[in-house]
């Protein structure tokens, strides 16, 4: 299981001013706190800085590294920002993650060389030039193409984190089910490949989103998802993570469930 802490994202109200005013302390504290409560990777996203995303990414990565050597998830659709983040993160000696490549030809070609150079974990989003996938079959078509191209280009299966592309259940009754079906296909066809997703898309347009997000985590984990981009400070969400892992036989002697209990990491 891989947890990516999502909180350092300039689109969040609390982060935007910190990024613009270069409040290093706030950023560093947030990175440390996420690792402390169980995140494996710290996501870094400053996409809202449209006119200086590259410099901002570099500053954020350098700033976080002054405080800790946590591996980072460099999060941007722009290859320039990804390149800046990866270069700046080199110092920590860890395998970073990048989020994300897709099967859209331009984006694929721009980003694949970075993946070859830095050998990061690579989030691959299930969409291509034909647009957003509508059905499970659409996703399967894109996944086959993505895995085939990525492995041909020298990316190892275990580096790949497929994101099945989660759409809101408010605009399509089958949105959750399609993700589950897609996960089963991936587990069956590419057992070495990992899967990952964010949790908030599923609940767009509906009230009490946290309940939907949490149940979706449990359901997708049961269907084989093994990575999430989430808020690790959300104790109820983390409760679902620790409990699901124990219940799915991913936590020998319930060590992690108990350890997190003693630290008060969930409720």
């Amino acid at each position, binding site marked *: 299981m891989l947890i990516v802490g999502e909180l350092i994202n300039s*689109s969040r109200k609390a982060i935007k001013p910190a990024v613009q005013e270069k409040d290093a302390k706030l950023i560093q504290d947030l990175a440390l706190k996420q690792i402390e409560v169980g995140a494996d990777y710290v996501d870094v996203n400053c*996409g*809202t800085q*449209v006119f200086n*995303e590259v410099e901002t990414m570099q500053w954020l990565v350098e700033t976080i590294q002054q405080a800790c050597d946590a591996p980072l998830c460099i999060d*941007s*659709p*722009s290859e320039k920002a990804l390149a800046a983040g990866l270069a700046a993160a080199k110092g920590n000696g860890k395998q970073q993650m990048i989020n994300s490549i897709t099967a*859209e030809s*331009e984006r694929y070609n721009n980003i694949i060389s970075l993946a070859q150079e830095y050998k990061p974990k690579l989030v691959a989003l299930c*969409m291509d030039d034909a*647009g*957003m996938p509508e059905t499970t079959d659409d996703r399967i078509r894109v996944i086959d193409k993505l895995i085939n191209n990525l492995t041909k280009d020298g990316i190892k299966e275990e580096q790949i984190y497929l994101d099945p592309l989660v*759409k*809101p259940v*408010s*605009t399509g009754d089958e949105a959750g089910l399609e993700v589950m079906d897609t996960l089963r296909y991936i587990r069956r066809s590419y057992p070495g490949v990992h899967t990952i997703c964010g949790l908030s898309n599923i609940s*767009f*347009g*509906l*009230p009490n989103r946290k309940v939907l997000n949490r149940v979706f985590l449990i359901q997708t984990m049961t269907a084989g998802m093994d990575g999430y981009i989430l808020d690790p400070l959300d104790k109820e969400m983390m409760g679902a993570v620790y409990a699901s892992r124990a219940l799915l036989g991913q936590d020998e002697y319930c060590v992690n469930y108990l350890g997190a209990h003693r630290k008060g990491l969930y409720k």
Partner: protein
Amino acid sequence: MMFSFEEVQSAVMAGEMDKVVELTRKAIEEKLQPVSIINEGYIPAMNVVGKRFKNGEMFVPEVLMAARSMNAGMELVKPLLVEGEVQVKGTILLGTVKGDLHDIGKNLVGMMIESGGYVVIDLGTDLEPEKFVEAVKEYKPEIVGMSALLTTTMLAMKETIEVLKEEGLRDGLKIMIGGAPVSKEFADEIDADGYAPDAASATELVEKLINA
């Protein structure tokens, strides 16, 4: 039982498609003006839906059900309309800009605006600025609405506005933008006329821009 507009309104608001169809049939049998079924039945109902959605009293699936019910009724009414009878409040072109394939938000916006009595022409996704130019020439809309969900494609909005200016199409045209990474500041920066954070606000923005 006589046909009542209140009844058809509440059926639309509740998203009861079968009931809307039944009541619409009854209205047609009773020789009501087809245009009044729209103007006094469907549109006021959808305006209420829009307000409730905006206030957080109704949610996306309920809005979709209401729109679907209205559309089912429309199918029956449309063939009976005399050309020019329905007053068009305005034409709005919608599209997701170059490099961006996201469409859920844009589709919701289109549906809400259409329900408000406007003509919506949805150009689709991944649109080169030239596509907007061609469509503006062809449809002569009051408003162009652009959507982008990626921080890398937001700048294509700027580019599109610049191309519209170069083509001499910007004057008299209102431009509104939306999408998760977009903000009011960004709208000002690229010389758009308005920004809406969600589908409900987009409808209000359309009203405001048209009446400005």
